[in-house]
């Protein structure tokens, strides 16, 4: 289960980088249909999340993300990026 800090930071990325209206940021919101992100955005979303949380997100997992909740969970599960000091459990 993703903690609130991760949820807040992912939501902040959605607002800042993808200009999603805050009111749309429900966990069940679908990235494509509800938030308007496309495949190009998907790549940059992963890059932004990796940078924000200092994690390395698996490409296959990234491709399977459909909802915001799945994105929160993916970030939570992802291992720290090589060379980073991040704690994968605590972030």
């Amino acid at each position: 289960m993703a903690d609130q800090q991760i949820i807040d930071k992912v939501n902040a990325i959605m607002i800042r980088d993808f200009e999603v209206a805050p009111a749309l940021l429900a966990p069940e919101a679908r990235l494509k249909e509800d938030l308007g992100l496309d495949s190009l955005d998907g790549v940059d979303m992963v890059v932004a999340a990796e940078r924000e949380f200092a994690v390395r997100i698996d490409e296959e997992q990234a491709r399977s993300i459909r909802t915001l909740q799945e994105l929160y969970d993916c970030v939570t599960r992802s291992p720290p990026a090589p060379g980073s000091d991040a704690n994968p459990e605590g972030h």
Partner: protein
Amino acid sequence: MRRVAITGMGMLSPIGNSRQAVAAALSGGVSGIRAMPEWAAVGDLKSHVAGLVSPFDPHQIPRTCRRTMGRLSLMAALAARQAVDDGALDPETLTSPNTGVIMGSTMGSVEVLDHFFGQFHAQHGINGLEGTMFMKVMGHTVSANVANLLGTRGQLLGLSSACASSTQAVGLACQMIQHGLGDVIICGGADEVQPTSVAVFDVLGAASRRYNHSPTSTPRPFDLQRDGVVLGEGAAVLILEEMDRARRRGARIHGEVLGYATNCDSSHMTQPGADLIEACMRQALVSAGIQPRDLHYINAHATGTTLGDAAEAAAIRALVGDAVPVSATKGYTGHLQGACGAMEAILCLMMMQDGVLQPTLNLEQVDPQCAGLAHLLKPLACRASLALSSNFAFGGVNASLVLAGG
């Protein structure tokens, strides 16, 4: 052969981001060049002056279009939208298969390229590189992004010939319409300024260095005290349209592209030669069906370099002697690189419409090597309707447009 009307114009430049602002700067003798003291931190870079576009709001462009735009494409997109609005092009025209986009730039976004290589070399890897990055640096980034924003579906061409890019874009667009290969073409160019772009000229000793503390005194086209190019950034876009079509829809016609020519002086990569510059100008005039002395105005490329200005002056001297007024508007704008050709075509049209030919800013004492021309040292009120505008680029590229206006 079909005639080519100019039915729309848009621009972002160091002297203004609208026709009105640019006209005010021209008539007021206002330079767009400013000091760049922050460039002193770039090792060995000696030129610390540039012409920058004043702040604009990129959020005027929808995010899904903006995300693939570097600074040059942002400026081009806004200029293109201005031009489309100015030309009152309707959605049906924009999506017609006979409407195309031909934009030029020296290269893709220099700022993004710097970022890419900085990140790549720091980690010797690609982690963290955004998927939208390539679309900001690819060779046809300006054309592609303009088309994406406007929703065009016809031909898309990206032209890259450094400082002649947009001259060639406008010229090619003209030829295509003349020969029935398109009815409406959105054309022009854009480039941005970064220390690495200035470095290109600085390492050749061709960038202005002596006026870092008095930036509005440079560049000095044709002047005895000139010391080189001052790079500027910007975007300039023209709507070219088949004349009968423009008339049928009641478009406001700013002018006409009468002729165009381009050639290549393959004798030297960077050193301009007067003979082929003159040949290019003559060829453009032949294509327009007019004689050299029919011209009312010549807008010179004249970037303020020692060799380039002298070669161009020799070409103009051989072409028309002192019979036709000559000025170089780079004294106001600096050198807009891939955007300069389209920008200077717009400035020619504006001056002819306004009935005042503006002088070369900072031209105080004509270099004897550049003498024998009718240099404009002050504004000249006159009824001008035929202009020649030329640009030259590394690679020996020469390009000349013949414009009718007024």
